[in-house]
């Protein structure tokens, strides 16, 4: 009974979340397509045409996986952080707090909403990229696995940000000052093999590098990092952030007086 009730509650949150970002598709689904389209034109075609190939791929082909995973990262994160903070700001988080729903179900519901948006945007960006290049996916399983795990990880990160946020400014600080730099420096636009030894070593401490390269491994079959390392690191962070989320909700930090 407990499991059945929580499955229904989980389904309710997921449907609510998907309907939420679908209702405002002009704000949630279209902008990433336009932004990434501009990246493809400027970096892929205009600048990329002047550059040599990387690991046997044209610059355009090389950056496609990075741009797709970048859009998955930013959209899964922003979906959860804005939605969950919105529930706090408008006080409808009380609907969840007064109900008998388990905190792990709340986390699973919001994370699934973030994953859904991340993957939908990922598919849209992939479709946009087809206007600029031809994609041959090396391993569908690896590509899908890394995309889903990355979306889960950044949805959890978005949830933690939302729990601590006290204003709308607070939900834009982490994406601006942490997420964007890590993503841009995570090998989206270049191979770390192109960097000097020192910066290459530093780059290996950037977790986003493993997601970008894991996804690139799935799509193109080339990577700057081992796929096994990428999967272990992503799952490790998922477990860590998931535990933190659950602890915060159980303690009522950021959501209860």
């Amino acid at each position, binding site marked *: *009974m*407990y499991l*059945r*009730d*929580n499955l*229904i*509650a989980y*389904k*309710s*949150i997921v*449907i*609510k979340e998907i*309907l*939420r970002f679908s*209702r405002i598709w002009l704000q949630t689904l279209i902008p990433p397509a336009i932004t990434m389209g501009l990246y493809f034109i400027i970096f892929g075609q205009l600048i990329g045409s002047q550059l040599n190939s990387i690991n046997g791929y044209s610059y355009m082909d090389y950056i496609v996986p990075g741009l797709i995973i970048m859009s998955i990262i930013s959209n899964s994160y922003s979906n959860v952080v804005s939605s969950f903070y*919105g*529930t706090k700001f*408008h*006080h*409808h988080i*009380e*609907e*969840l*707090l*007064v*109900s*008998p*729903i*388990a905190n792990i179900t709340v986390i699973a519901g919001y994370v699934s909403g973030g994953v859904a948006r991340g993957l939908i945007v990922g598919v849209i960006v992939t479709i946009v990229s087809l206007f600029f290049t031809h994609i041959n996916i090396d391993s569908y399983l690896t590509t899908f696995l890394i995309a889903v795990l990355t979306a889960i990880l950044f949805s959890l990160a978005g949830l933690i940000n939302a729990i601590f946020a006290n204003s709308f400014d607070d939900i834009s600080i982490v994406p601006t000052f942490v997420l964007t730099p890590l993503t841009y420096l995570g090998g989206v636009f270049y191979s770390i093999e192109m960097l000097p030894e020192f910066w290459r070593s530093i780059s290996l401490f950037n977790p986003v590098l493993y997601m970008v390269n894991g996804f690139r491994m799935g799509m193109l079959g080339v990577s700057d990092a081992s796929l096994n390392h990428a999967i272990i690191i992503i799952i490790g962070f998922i477990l860590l952030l998931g535990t933190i989320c659950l602890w915060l909700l159980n303690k*009522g930090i950021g959501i*209860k*007086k």
Partner: protein
Amino acid sequence: MMKALEIKNLKKTYKNGFEALKGINLNVQKGDFFALLGPNGAGKSTIIGIICSLINKSSGHILIQGHNLENAQRAAKAQLGIVPQEFNFNVFEPVEEILVNQAGYYGINRPEAFKRAQAHLKQLGLWDKRREMARDLSGGMKRRLMIARALMHKPSILILDEPTAGVDIEIRRSMWQLLQEINEQGTTIILTTHYLEEAEQLCKNIAIINQGRIIKNCTMSELLSESDSECIILNLDSELKKTPQFTDYSSNLVDAKTLEIEIKKHKNINDLFKQLTEKQINVLSMRNKSNRLEQLFLHLVEDKAIIKAEREN
């Protein structure tokens, strides 16, 4: 009789050191229509917040239908329906979706949730608005939406925190009727309100809280019987130049055509009219100066500053 709600030595001290609850003990019987009254800042919302798991308590125990809110949280929460003071639904969601989602949080599947939503929306006159965004509803409709939402999982206890604040008298009366019907069907109702007339009319039992302590907890009739006197206002058909004097009644001429009379407890009002007739004073209409419960409430809480704030609200 089984207790619907049992509060034992409940204390709450906020981080800023404010002691909102100083050891509350309170029992609400199953099927009761219970009023929890108190001036602003007395601790009503803190009690409700703790019962609803929105506020963490400092110490004490709460049992809901016998389930400890701490150890059997899920079972305890499933018994509760909450209608908060502030609108706390997603105003960017359609009305029907708000209800269906809420039912889902209580493990009610969507086909059943849609059926219940239809019933409650029709019952509360919101059926035509089911596809509209909640933000487009009027204040009264939003209040009714919150009642509908609280009823979706058929709670055994319904807690209403000032449910009729800001709604017009017509809607208020219809909400009273609805709440009475819900109570007659066996749902325990706990009501906080600033409209003391509302509490007097609806509630069987009452607790008055002031400065974090329960200062009165009895039946409504017991409390009202404590009233020593009642003050009525008479509207006269002709002007009086001076205040008429009555045997056993004290009077005060408010203006030339308005007379205020204080009637002591157990005093027959017929005698008053007899004396009025003898003095050839014709009364056009009569009303209470203030609600009896209001007089007692003001007397009990005593703190003039709080009373002033209460009246201003």
